[in-house]
Each structure stands twice: as structure tokens, then as C-alpha cells.
């Protein structure tokens, strides 16, 4: 029933004010968090961990792209780590070959990766589910093989920019305002924020609505007049673009790129952590990146082999698929609430008996 009369109108006004207040609190929390991440976080950690945080930031963008494909559109891609490698290659090549400003290189790396990703994805998008996953995994394998033979640019000449040298290799340049690791971390966070905003704008507008329809049912989407091929391709292009930008960042972050660092199985790990973090939420991308890039750094510093994580991720994915389809970002708040309720129920009777005595 719709509330009627003055009381109803007042209640409606109140509830909409309440919603506004809540959303402005939310914005304030996010801004505070960002300020802390940008200015507090790097000084709290040693350079070792700042390096890990840069990787977390970059992989958050990659996870965001995969989360978009898996969670919003329902496209299971197992090739995103290879797309990242493509972006890194293009970024590195441009940084050696040109003196273009870094942001421009990032945009170009994103655009070129987008074109490559779409060309590769075009035939693949006719497939769905398991078959799409398989074909993207094979393409990722193919890209890895090609990159292993061409190698990453290291200041050499020609199209490939590789000179076979192992010593006296020039480092890939960084933006002049972000030479040190903490500065590069801040730079990466700003780029990541822009990528998150880009995706958010898409989700809130026409393509986001079309993707929601496609995810639920392609028949329903077609019956709504949506060209499903076009919007799936759009999602693929957007994910490739931001992953390419992430690759451009990675080139500057690592400074020296080797093809051995890009493995086909990274794509599988990526899908695992995206599912664990939560594919339906943008926060899930950050959790996924922490799982994939910060946990190994932590284990390394404790002298524990990060290989254990493969087992942990396996269990994690199993848990997500069986009990928590929306991942950690959805499950954690619920668990905390449940824990709080449990603690309160334990504390309250004790307090009551204490008060009466």
C-alpha cells in the first residue's frame, strides 16, 4: 500500500531523506578510505609491502574487468591474465619507443589492447559458458606462447623492441611525478579510481541495464530489443580496455618485464579470486586483488611457500560455489552480524543477572 495523506507524504519525505543521508555517509566513508589509502597506507608499510600494494592496485583493475564479465554479463573468460600481458607489452613498447606522457601511454595501451581483445573475442563471443571459458583459456595459452618467443621490449630496436641482452637493460620509465615506489603506488591508485568510475558509469546507465538483462536471460534481453551480441562485445571491449591500462601500469611498476612472469594459469587463479572476492560487487575486485597479490607477499615474508595459496583458493572457490555465491564481500558483513548477535546473546543474560544481584 502506498502511504496516503499528510502523514504518508511526510513518511515518504523522511524515508527519501534517510536514503540520501545514508548515501552521503557512504560517499564520505569512501572518500576517507581513499585519503587513507593515498596518504596513510604507503607510510605504514615497508617498501617491500608498498611494492605488493602496487600489484594489488593493478590487479584490482584486472579483477574489476573480469568481475564485470563474469558477474554482470555472465561471460566466463579464462584469458584475462593474457590480456594483461598484452597491455603490458604494448605499454612497455610505447614507453621505450616514444616520449609520450605516461597517462597518454596508458590510454593508448588500453585502446590497443581493446582492439586486440575484441578481435580475439569476436569469434569467441558466439560461445557460452564452458565453451567460452575453454576457448579463452586456449587463446590465453596461445598469447603466452607468442610472448615467450617475442619477449618483452627491453630497449631494443625494431617492432618487437627486444635485443636479447641480459645486462645493461634500461628500465621502463615511470612518470616523473611517480618515480619512487610510494609515489607510483599513489599514481596507480588514482588510475584505478578512474577505471572504477568508468565501469560504474557503465553499470548505472544503458549498458549496465542491458547487461543485467543478458545475464538473467538472453531471450528476455532479445525480447526487450537488446542486441545481445553488441552489448556482450561492449563488455568485452570495456574489460579489455581497463585491463590494458592495468598492463600499462604494470610495465612501469615492474620496470623490467620477462615473459616468464606471465603464466597461463594466472588467468585461472584470477577467476578463482574474483569468485571468492565477489563477482557481483565492485568491492569484490579489491578483495580479489588482495587475495591474489598481498597474501603471497605476506606468506613470503613469513617464509611460508605461497604455493599453499593454490590449495586455499581451491577450497575458497568450492565454498563460494556451494554456500556464498556473492563472495566474501557479501558473506563477511553477514558473518560479522551473526557473530555480534552471538556475542550479545552471551553478554546480555550475564549483565541481566549481574544487575539483579
Amino acid at each position, binding site marked *: 500500500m502506498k502511504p496516503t495523506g499528510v502523514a504518508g507524504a511526510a513518511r515518504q519525505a523522511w524515508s527519501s531523506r534517510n536514503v540520501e543521508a545514508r548515501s552521503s555517509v557512504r560517499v564520505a566513508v569512501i572518500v576517507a578510505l581513499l585519503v587513507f589509502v593515498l596518504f596513510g597506507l604507503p607510510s605504514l608499510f615497508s617498501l617491500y609491502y608498498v611494492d605488493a600494494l602496487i600489484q594489488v592496485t593493478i590487479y584490482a583493475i584486472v579483477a574489476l574487468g573480469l568481475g564485470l564479465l563474469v558477474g554482470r554479463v555472465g561471460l566466463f573468460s579464462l584469458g584475462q591474465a593474457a590480456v594483461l600481458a598484452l597491455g603490458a607489452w604494448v605499454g612497455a613498447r610505447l614507453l621505450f619507443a616514444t616520449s609520450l606522457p605516461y597517462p597518454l601511454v596508458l590510454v593508448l595501451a588500453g585502446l590497443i589492447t581493446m582492439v586486440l581483445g575484441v578481435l580475439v573475442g569476436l569469434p569467441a563471443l558466439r560461445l557460452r559458458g564452458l565453451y567460452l571459458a575453454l576457448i579463452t583459456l586456449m587463446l590465453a595459452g596461445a598469447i603466452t606462447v607468442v610472448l615467450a618467443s617475442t619477449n618483452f621490449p627491453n630497449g631494443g630496436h625494431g617492432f618487437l623492441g627486444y635485443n636479447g641482452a641480459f645486462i645493461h637493460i634500461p628500465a621502463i620509465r615511470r612518470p616523473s611525478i611517480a618515480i619512487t615506489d610510494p609515489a607510483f603506488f599513489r599514481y596507480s591508485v588514482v588510475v584505478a579510481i578512474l577505471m572504477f568510475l568508468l565501469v560504474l558509469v557503465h553499470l548505472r546507465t544503458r549498458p549496465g541495464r542491458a547487461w543485467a538483462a543478458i545475464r538473467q536471460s538472453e531471450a528476455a534481453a532479445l*525480447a*526487450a530489443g537488446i542486441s545481445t551480441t553488441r552489448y556482450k562485445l561492449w563488455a568485452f571491449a570495456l574489460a579489455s580496455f581497463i585491463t590494458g591500462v592495468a598492463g600499462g601500469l604494470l610495465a612501469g611498476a615492474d620496470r623490467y618485464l620477462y615473459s616468464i612472469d606471465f603464466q597461463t594459469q594466472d588467468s585461472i587463479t584470477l577467476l578463482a579470486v574474483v569468485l571468492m572476492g565477489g563477482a557481483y560487487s565492485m568491492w569484490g575486485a579489491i578483495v580479489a586483488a588482495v587475495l591474489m597479490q598481498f597474501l603471497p607477499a605476506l606468506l613470503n615474508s613469513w617464509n611460508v611457500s605461497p604455493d599453499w595459496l593454490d590449495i586455499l583458493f581451491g577450497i575458497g572457490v568450492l565454498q563460494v560455489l556451494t554456500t556464498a555465491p556473492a563472495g566474501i564481500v557479501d558473506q563477511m558483513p553477514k558473518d560479522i552480524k551473526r557473530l555480534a548477535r552471538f556475542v550479545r546473546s552471551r553478554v546480555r543474560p550475564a549483565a541481566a543477572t549481574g544487575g539483579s544481584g
Partner: protein
Amino acid sequence: MIEVSDLTVRFGGVTPLDRMSVTFDKGTCGLIGPNGAGKTTFFNVLSGFVRPASGTIHAFGEDLLSMVHFRRARWGVRRTFQTEQAIEGLSVFDNVAMIHEHSKLSRGSRRADTLEALSFVGLDVDPDVKVGTLGAGNRRLVEVARAVVGKPRVVLLDEPAAGLPDRETDQMGDVIRRIPDHTGALTILVDHDMDLVSSCCGVTSVLDFGKLIASGPTAEVLRDERVIRAYLGTEPVL
């Protein structure tokens, strides 16, 4: 007006539609038949999800079969599904507005047309709530609002009242009866509820095993011996 002639659909060895020829003139037309008669297949042909083996369909002079599925929706073929398909993750408003968004209508009228469609179906909920939080009856109403928003030319309703309690079925019937006058669209109703079909449709066509066995004024069709036989079988009772 929709003119169907010699429409045949084959799935391997099965022929769900067998040389179906029928004309749906105007208003709300019924399409009934026992389970497996080919009613949903016919809707799927109209929507473009199934390509017929032969036959033609002309809707208001337009050759429907030459249009790609999603363009038919933009042109004005709207439908609801047997298992309701309102988009759970979107708000009630967005669900209806997205149909408008992908039609040829101007952006300026989107908000007004969407709210108008919601009030037409009598949906009494906050347009900003997610469809996933609504009950079955209201979801069906959202789906009908999606089918009537803007300028539909053909509205296909596939068992819109299936599983609804009597009171909500009556409400749905009331909405269906008003669709042709309100939107100008030709409406085709598939349902097993004969009370609903009788109360909504002036004319009704009957399919049985993919063949059109009767077509005409609803009351006459429902008394037709062939129709009764199709529903109850040829074996004498007792």
C-alpha cells in the same frame, strides 16, 4: 492485423507447427490448445527465436520473418514469458524504461511513458525497488508493463496468469482487456484458464498437435466438438 499462412516449424522429427494459417484481426485474440499444441512455439516464431521451415507472417503489412529478433522488439513485437522474465537485478522503473530505451521512441517521453505504463497495470509499489524483492503477482504486472510501455504493435501474453490466485487473475484479466484500447496493439493471449480467455477475447483460435483446428468467436469455439475432443480426448468417458 497479423496474417499467418502455411507456417510450419520442424525440430528434427517433431513438427510443433504444421501448416498453420490464421488471421488475428484486432483487439485481444485468444490462442488455446492442450499442452504441446505449439502455442509457445508460435510465439517464439513471432519473436524470432525459432526460424520456421516454411510459411509467411505479415504483421500490419510488414514481413515479420525478414526482421532480426531484437529488431522485431524495437519495431513493436512485445511479449511476456511463460516463466516470468522481469529482470530481477533492476528496479521496477528500469525494467520498464529499458524497453522504451531500446525502442525507436524519443528519450524525452521515457520517464512519463514508463510511469504511465506502471499506473496502467495498476502496480502499487515504489518504482525504485528491485524486481527481485516483489511477489509473483507484482512481477507479472511488471512484465506486462514492459510489454505495453511506449508504442507496442503486437503484445504476446504467454500464460500471464499462470499460478496466480483468483483475485490477482481477475486483476490481470482487467489489465489485458484494456490493452488494445489503451495502446492500439493487437494482443494475443495464450492461457489455459478458459474463464480468463472467455472474458478477455472476442475471438479465439485453437491449436492441437501443431494444427489449427478452430478459429472464431470465443463462445462458439469453446462449444466446438473438435475442440472439446482435443482437450478431453476421443475415448468416450465411462
